[in-house]
């Protein structure tokens, strides 16, 4: 379908962004399913709402802060006990390729 709202390549791209690996079959299935969901969303896509402001918080609040006061931290052993791997009081991970952006 030419005017599909999302292509197989798009799905492969978002899977990479989301750090998910898909088999070819999954890629086909998900492409079809996401296309039908986005197809259903075409009604929203079609609306002209440039003069309607977006809502990101359903209940309007402003300037919520806390005092700059120290609170107790977690016990390191309790924290690291949950880690898949740790060493010298730190979380251990396999080699990291590439710098942080």
């Amino acid at each position, binding site marked *: 379908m030419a005017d599909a709202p999302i292509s197989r390549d798009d799905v492969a791209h978002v899977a990479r962004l989301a750090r998910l690996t898909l088999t070819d079959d999954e890629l086909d299935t*998900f492409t079809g399913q996401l296309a039908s969901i986005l197809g259903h969303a075409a009604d929203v896509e079609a609306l002209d709402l440039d003069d*309607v402001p977006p809502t990101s918080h359903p209940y309007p609040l402003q300037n919520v802060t806390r005092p700059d006061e120290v609170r107790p931290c977690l016990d390191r052993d309790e924290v690291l006990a949950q880690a898949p791997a740790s060493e010298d009081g730190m979380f251990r991970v*396999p080699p990291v390729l590439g710098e942080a952006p």
Partner: protein
Amino acid sequence: MSAVEIAEAVAAGERSARSVVDEHLARIDEQEGEVHAFNLVLADEARARADELDRRIATGGDVGPLAGVPVALKDNLCTRGIPTTCSSRILEGWRPPYDATVVQRLRAAGAVVVGKTNLDEFAMGSSTENSAFGPTRNPLDTARVPGGSSGGSAAAVAAGFAAVSLGSDTGGSIRQPGALCGVVGAKPTFGRTSRYGLIAFASSLDQIGPFARTVEDAALLMEVISGPDPFDSTSIPEAFPDLRGVLGRGVEGLRVGIVEELMGGEGGIQAEVEARTREAALALEKAGAVVDMVSVPAAVYGLSAYYLIAPAEASSNLARFDGVRFGLRDERATTGETYDATRTAGFGPEVKRRIMLGTYALSSGYYDAYYGKAQRVRTMIIRDFEAAYERFDVLLSPASPCVAFPFGDKTADPLSMYLNDVCTIPSSLAGHPALSVPFGTGAHDLPVGVQVMAPALGEQVMFQVAAAIEAAAPGAAR
């Protein structure tokens, strides 16, 4: 025995908390194998906790408003030292180092936690079939789903495993299973209950709320868990109002609107469900309310907007499940490959589907068309509701378009499953309070839930009306 009755009896020393807990644990022993409401039953902890409460009562110590009340917690609420899984393999073996705010408040109120209940993985679903640990069955007909995503919590209350329970509602995950299991399920105004310690699905929509067998129990539980919390920046600073005090007020003179867009076949509403909803409205009219139809035009865009907004926020909220600090790790040669392997192995298909959908809705070039547009639709829906609430005190609709459906009915096509939320989503997007209260039965004698919606901060009038519907429901004691 209702939660209110239990709390009074236990506090008065007429019943021991231990005997109440044993009674519920016995029922769990009998039927849990069939229902599978729980991911984890905390029998020993519950007994120990009950004994501690009984000692405190014996020595005249003060116990809270939920003294000895057995409560079940949806397994996406953090409990210190107790496994919390979101019914996902990716959280395998994780024991949170802290309690959710609502869990702290339950304990302070004297409640006894009997277990962590099953859910659709990360609360993504409407049938609890998306649990990595197998589905929960509807206690009223174990060939059918309990609804979702809080299916375990709804089933636990319907089956009498707990007097009350907590669920979370993002697009209807309390109200819809409440309806399908024939119990009361309520969600407050967004910001009334602290989300601190609730594992996020969609941060701008998630709210925690109660399941109960009576409107009064639901009111009691909501009073206990709601109110300002300094650990949640989106928590509403105003004190939470008294709910139980308004239940007897009746509906004389209240203006009740039936939402056109959420009735009738085009919404895919089953005929019996629509009929029960109209009968509930009629009952309110008999009780002195003024009932009329009302249009909330933008409500028809709710489903589309919701299935762009919720997945978008979820795609970011679920990034942290990467195998570095907790839970599952499928270790590979590099951290990047470990991310891929861990998340691919740890998440089920519906979660992956929504993560990808949300990632797409936020990705460069599509943000404005999808996420941005959906946030504007949200404004339209809020405006249309505000207009409706100028003429009406509460709005009425079915809570679910259909009664409990058989397993596998809607798993093939995700969209057909999403349509279960058509009635509940609009008030979720608006951040308004809404609840489902049982009113008679539909096809196969399965329960129907009527949804009562109110404007922001309108919990009192919402419960006032719910109490009247409950009193008028077929088979209710008059």
